[in-house]
Every structure is written in C-alpha cells, then in structure tokens.
C-alpha cells in the first residue's frame, strides 16, 4: 500500500525531474492512462519549475483523492517565495516577469481538471491542481 502522500522538496532543477517521475509513477499505479500520466507529469514539471525560478525553494505534494466513486491525483505546489501580485494577470497566456515563457499557469489549468491558486505578496504561493481518472 502506498503512503497517503508523497512529498518532494524542490530546490534545484534535478528535483523537478524527481517530482515529475514520482507523479507519473503514482498516476500509472492508480490506473491512469499513459496520456493522462503525461499530462500530470508535465503539469508537475511546470509547477516545480515556477518554484525553482521564482521562489527558489518549495515543495510538491502528491495525494490520492476520492470523490464519490471517482479516484484522482491532487498536486500541491507550495512555496514561501515572493508571491504573485496580480493572479489574474498571471493566469493570462504569455505573461511573464522573469523573461521566461511565462508562469505556464494557464497551460497547467488546461492540462488538469481542477485548478486553484492562492498567493500573498511576500508570503508565498500555493497551487492545487487535480486530475480525475476517466
């Protein structure tokens, strides 16, 4: 039996790889299709990269979630970094403050079934996304 949650500390680009591999393994184990496992792994990669790029350190937590008869995966990306001043702007395609391609948040929202974000300037950011098994 798997642990109820998997935590991956995110400090460097290597941790991004670890987190997305854990996510894919968990998704496959739960019976997600390889296509959905790829969407989950890609979302983790984007969320973990935001942590490394903007907050330098944080954590990715993977959880198995249940709702009525459905099973799914929840990914929680949290950091105590600078936070996002304007979430509405960050959720627009192409918006970036670090010269990168942008936070990739609108893209992650499209890859997953549920998306929530909370951020406070100077305190940090938490993004919670979920994917339900088809």
């Amino acid at each position: 039996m798997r642990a109820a949650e998997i935590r991956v500390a995110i400090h460097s680009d290597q941790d991004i790889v670890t987190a997305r591999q854990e996510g894919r393994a968990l998704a496959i184990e739960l019976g997600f299709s390889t296509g959905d496992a790829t969407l989950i792994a890609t979302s983790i990669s984007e969320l973990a990269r935001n942590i490394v790029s903007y907050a330098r350190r944080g954590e990715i937590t993977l959880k198995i979630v249940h709702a009525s008869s459905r099973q799914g995966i929840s990914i929680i990306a949290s950091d105590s970094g600078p936070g996002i001043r304007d979430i509405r702007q960050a959720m627009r395609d192409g918006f970036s403050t670090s010269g990168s391609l942008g936070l990739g948040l609108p893209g992650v929202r499209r890859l997953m079934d549920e998306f929530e974000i909370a951020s406070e300037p100077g305190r940090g950011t938490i993004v919670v996304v979920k994917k339900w098994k088809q």
Partner: protein
Amino acid sequence: MEVPILKQGEVLIATFQAALSDADLNHLRMGLVQQVVKFRSRAVIVDVTAMDVMDSFASRTLREIAHMIRLRGAETVIVGIQPEVAFAMVQLGLTLEGVATALDLEEGLAYLTQKFKNTD
C-alpha cells in the same frame, strides 16, 4: 547525464533520454552547436522518442538549438515526439514553430537526404 551524439556522415544524431534536467538541456545546447562546428555538419537530428515530458523549458531549448544551428548554416530535425507528449504540448500552448519535425529517425534521415539532394 550524458546524451549520446552519433556522427553519421554529414549528420549528427543526438538521442535525448527521459530524465533530462534543465542543466542537462543547457549543457546539450552548447555541446551540440560545438559539435556542428567541429564536424562541419550539415544537419542535426534530435531524437526525443524517449522523452516522456516536454515542458516549456525543454521545448524552448529545442527551439533555441534549432535556431543556433540554423545560424551555422545547418538544419535541425526533431524526431520521435510521442503522441501523448504532442497532446500535452498543444494544451500547454507550446510550439516548435520554424523547426522541422519528422515521425522517427528514418523519416528524419529521408527528409534530410531529399533536402541535400535539392541543394547540392
């Protein structure tokens, strides 16, 4: 992580592994361009068949590799993007605009052979 780069005549073939970190990708970008210069290669095939995740950083790096190699007067073909990876890229809004792609290594080589024939 080392990425094997194979020299086949005027073409370099780089085979990307699944678990490439950002640092690996950066390293590779420089390495590939240097090899193109060293061997006076006319083309590079980047085989991404094994890559199970193509996120924004990886696709940007691939685009940069292709553009740098074009500035050297050589051609880049990305081969082997898996269907589910392609789906995730489209959902994320990632494109490889201006970069040639082919189904697999064989198709990539065929594309280049045709291209060389037209320019020789």
